[in-house]
């Protein structure tokens, strides 16, 4: 089941889950995803070993979409 996960102080929080046929659940996930982007999170899909892609729209078919905070030089 595809999930929208946010990395936060709890380790990670599952914000939404949806299935391929459940459009209502997917729409809720899209809303949540956009809200998180507005709060400054960055959406990332892990594409297997060594690869990840930034996403600006919630992909319906990615198994896990991860929300991370920006990074900066220390």
């Amino acid at each position: 089941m595809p999930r929208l996960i946010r990395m936060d102080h709890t380790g990670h929080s599952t914000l939404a889950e949806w299935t391929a046929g459940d459009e209502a659940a997917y729409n809720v996930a899209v809303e949540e995803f956009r809200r998180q982007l507005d709060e400054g999170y960055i959406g990332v899909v892990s594409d297997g070993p060594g690869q990840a892609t930034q996403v600006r729209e919630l992909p319906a078919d990615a198994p896990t979409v991860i929300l991370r905070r920006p990074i900066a030089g220390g």
Partner: protein
Amino acid sequence: MEAGALPELAAVPWRRRASEASIRRRGQLWTLTTVAHVVPFIAVAVVLMLLQPLSAPVAAAALAHAWIIPELYAVRGANTIRPKRREPPLSEPVAQGFLGDLLGHEERDLHRSTGLAVERGRLGVWLVGEAGAVLVTPGGRRVHCFCVAATEGGLPPSDRIAHLLLALRTDETGFATVANHAFSGAPWRLRRRMDGRGRPALAAARRAAASFS
């Protein structure tokens, strides 16, 4: 900004995007700077001893400077991947499990024992810590240390590493551009200044970098 570029690049528009060539040049510049720091002190020590053997204490001080300055730079490099000394939060096991899902078997075990994640990239092999990363260049004979961290406070250590790992995987040269370069030199210089727990991770990264193709 080009497609696939790290969005954080927008925060450092004055920086030129890092590349294999720019990182190599930076390494050469560090070597040159180190030589420029060390050689004059050694020369002063030698000249003093030739002119007046009674000036041995001053010559010794000059030699100490020649030794200390590069060591201080190496400490700065090691600090980038030194684990923060504090009690890990209760959420750390959850974060560690999540990070483990992003890593392969070997890398996961290595992270559990060393607190550092090893990641093979195109520029070389990376060691990713909570607040920084080390790039071991192909061949394993040079390291570049970078200060870089997730901007949110209160994240468990493994989540901090996962943030950096995902950014690195999204855009490796962008990651090297956003991060602040802190040190470059021979791996043995860094190793001496790392805590014992992290050294096996550096050894693993060097082995991987030695067979880099």
